[in-house]
Structure formats: C-alpha cells, structure tokens
C-alpha cells in the first residue's frame, strides 16, 4: 500500500484551484486514482476548463458512469473518467445528485462522446441531462417502465 501523495501538488488539482477554488468540493485518493468532487452547478464550466486548458488538455473522455447509493442521500454519483493524451494522465470527476431531482447539465458540447454515455445513464438510471439533443432510451425499448440499474429495481419477480 503506497502512501497518499500530496494531492495539492497534482497539476490538475493545482490548476483547478488557481482557476476556480469553488469547483473542488473535495478530493479523494484511492489506489493511485484521484477523484475530484465537483458541485453540480460547477461541472459544465469545469469540464470546459479541463478540456480547453492548453496545459492540462483533458481532451479525451473515456467514460461516464453512475452509481446508485439508494437509500442514502445524495442518491446518485456520476463519475467522469478523463484522459489527457498529451500528458498521459487521468482524472476522475464525481458529482453527487439528489434522488428526487437527478438532473445535470450535459457535457456534450465539451466532449461529444458523452452523447451515448448520457443516453445510456438516462435509460438505466433515470438521470436527466439538460441540453442533451436526443435523450431517449437507448438499450431498452421505448415503452419500458423503470430504470434497471437503480438499486430499488428488483432483479426478479414482478416489478
């Protein structure tokens, strides 16, 4: 087990702090991976900053995925896995969303690849992405009821 490094020295964390201190609600370090906790309202601006910043150049979005923490609140966590091709570095952004209003702004203008990821999350978790051009079900039929990856969705028996 390695020691936790000084996260403030990480170039991405330092740059975000210098740009907008309020964009970091917290930092986590686990198994060599840094997670930046981001307030919901800040995500879109921070995404634009990280992708557009010449030094950091997080131009590649590997993955977006959600975790349902039901019955805890805030219920949903969204994880954005970023990759900088020029620096060979990665970063995870995490946003927490409340269970009664799981809505967040889309990041498609920053990373077009988010289009299908967000549609899939909408389909399986019921999280809405504001400004998404085509927020329809993706893997399930259009008339499906419920969102299967939610923890209160039963794995067997009547729904």
């Amino acid at each position: 087990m390695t020691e936790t490094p000084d996260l403030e020295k990480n170039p991405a964390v330092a740059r975000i702090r210098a740009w907008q201190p309020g964009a970091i609600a917290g930092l986590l370090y686990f198994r060599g991976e840094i997670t930046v906790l981001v307030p919901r309202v800040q995500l879109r601006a921070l995404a634009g900053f990280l992708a557009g910043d010449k030094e950091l150049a997080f131009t590649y979005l590997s993955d977006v995925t959600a975790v349902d923490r039901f019955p805890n609140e805030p219920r949903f966590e969204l994880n954005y896995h970023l990759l900088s091709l020029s620096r060979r570095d990665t970063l995870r952004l995490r946003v927490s969303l409340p269970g009664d209003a799981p809505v967040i702004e889309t990041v498609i203008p920053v990373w077009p690849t988010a289009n299908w990821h967000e549609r899939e999350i909408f389909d399986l978790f019921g999280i809405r992405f504001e400004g998404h051009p085509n927020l329809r079900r993706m893997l399930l039929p259009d008339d499906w009821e419920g969102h299967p990856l939610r923890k209160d969705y039963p794995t067997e028996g009547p729904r």
Partner: protein
Amino acid sequence: MTTVQTAIGPEKTMVLNMGPQHPSTHGVLRVLLELDGENVVKADVDIGYLHTGIEKTAEALTYSQAITITDRMDYLAPLSNNLAYCLAVEKLLDLEIPKRAQYIRVLLTELTRIGSHLVWLGTHAIDLGAMSVFLYCFREREELLKIFEMVSGQRMMTSYFRIGGLALEPPAGWTERVENVVRTFPSRIDEYEDLLTKNRIWMARTQGVGILNAEDAIALGVSGPSLRGSGVDYDVRKYFPYSSYDEFDFQVPVRTEGDCFARYMCRVAEMRESLKIVRQALDKIPAEGPIKADAPGIVAPQRERMKTEMEALIYHFKIYTEGFAPPPGEVYQRVESPRGELGCFVASDGSPKPYRMRMRTPSFVNLQALQKMVEGRLIADVIASIGTLDIVLGEIDR
C-alpha cells in the same frame, strides 16, 4: 424508435431500414439510413437488441462469480474482458500477481488479439466480396482456439484469468503449440496481404472511404486501431502499462489517412506486433513458479494443501460460500482489448459482491463514429465502415 427527422424533407429522401438482421452488421444492429438516391443523408444507429443486463447481473454475484459473465460480452476476446475485470478487482484488493501469471496473461491476451483480428479481417473481407480470405482466417483462428481449449478447457468462454492469477496450471506441451503458431503465422499474414493489400478492388472499396480525422476521433472517444488509423498513437499498453507490458518491446502501428484502408493496415501490422510480444513472452515465462498470488482468503488454496491443512480447507469453504470482501472504494482499470480501450469500473461497498460493475466497452463508443464516417457517402460505404469499426454487438448492448 419510430420517426426519423429528415434533413432535406420527405419528398426528396427515403428511409431504408438496414438490419437488425443483416449479415454485414456483424450482429443485431439496426441502422436507419436516410437516402437521397444512393447517397446517405443521415445514418441513425439503433442498438439494444442484445441487452442482457450484465452490469445488473454482476451486482448479484460474488466477485469471483462475476468473471464468468465478462466472457460473454465480447465473444471474440473473452480473455481481454477477463483481464480488465480481474485487474480492476486486484487493484481494489491491492493484490500483487506473480510474474509468471502476468506473462502468461500477456501471452494469451495477445493470442486473443490475433484471433479477434482474424475474425475481423475475414468478415470485413467477406462483406466487401473477398470470400477466400474468410476461409483462411478461420482456419488459422481454429489453431488459436485449440490453444485456449488446451489451456483452459474452453474454446471461447474461457474464464481462465481469476482474481489473483490464473485458474489452473497450463498443461505440459502448451508452449510447443504456441511456438508452432509463432513460427507459421507470419507467412499466413503475408498470404492475407497478398490477397488484399494491393488488390485493386480492395483498394477501391477501402481507400478514402469512411474517413475519420484525428480531432473527431478524439472528440468521439474512439480508441484502439480505429483511433490509430487516424494518426493518434493512443494504446493503453504503452500509455498506462498493466500486467508487465512495459517489459515487452513492441511498436504501435499508426497510420494518418483515417480511412478504412488505414485501419486495415493498422490491424494487420498489429497482428505482427502481437506475435513479437508472444515470442518474447515465451522466452520470459519461467518454467516453474506460482500462478496465483499468495493471498489466503481471496485466492483458493491448492487442492493438495486443502486435503492436509485445516486452514486451507476453511479458506476454500469460505471463498466458495461467502466470497471475499474488498475494502470500500472505486477503481477504474483500462486495458487494450482488440477493439480499443476496455475500461472496468468497480465500486465496492465492503461486501462480497460488487456494488456496481461497469464496463466501458470500446465497440459501444466507437460505433458512435459511424454517423460521421458515412454521412454524405454512398450506401456501399456504410458496409465498409461498419466492418472497419470492428464492432461486437454483445459488447455494445451488454
């Protein structure tokens, strides 16, 4: 999925439904093509026909049991899927794997890559009208499947990589079989190239077709040979080495044209590079040594010890009844599957079952680029473009 918004208007264009059952969609993929004559105005991709809820299923299985469902996502590269998942859980557990097991993992995943590229090459060629390549490719793939069967007991759904190492010691004589492939295969690749690379029909069907520039490819999250055909050298094996890939000497083939031909050349060159890795792995693998990490409570004890030691028997019983519980936390582990970046996100809540298991599958993300590649092109180019993306629908729909 009902209405299609037309770009030009209903009177000038027609909508053609391609798939879901169509031999060249490589599975159950539906593409709604809006056509103006033979030109594609808009291509809408409809997926989900093979959705089986693998991520939900995993939440009800123990960490070890979930390995078996990762095989079933990508039937052409089960070992790559096993590897991504096992590495993710091992990262969660902070578990060190013996070198011997790591090298065997590298060797087998590279053979998987060759096998997967062979199926891609064969089916891509048959889509474009070259029948014989398909038969040759499947002949060679058979040899690889026999190696997998010899090692793991299964041709396709191997589940050979386990958390902490390998399922069992590879049988005696398996390296000779691999040696045989390494010896004979380069001339086989020459054969495919003889049939295709300078073939005028092949060139006409692939050169300048399905162009994807580097900027769009990165923006759309494309990875693997599909990205490297557009001039970006991103390969997880080089960028974020895992499983001792940093000890191997190999090149990452990159082409800058961004068309179907460039991607074809990348994959063919990749098969040769994979052979180089296999060759090196054969030399590196120690004849003897552990194939499982020394981690009681996580890795099942050897059969012999179980019969003589009380602790081993208890551990065996506990592993197979309760499983083991990694500490709470989340990890994201990426590997280079034959199709690109295969990411496995595992969230643990400290229980013996994954709280959330997410597979970021390269086919799913790469397929998004299809629209960009075919719009404004001929309908025949759609076939070439789907083929060149090398998609596996089981992996897309999960």
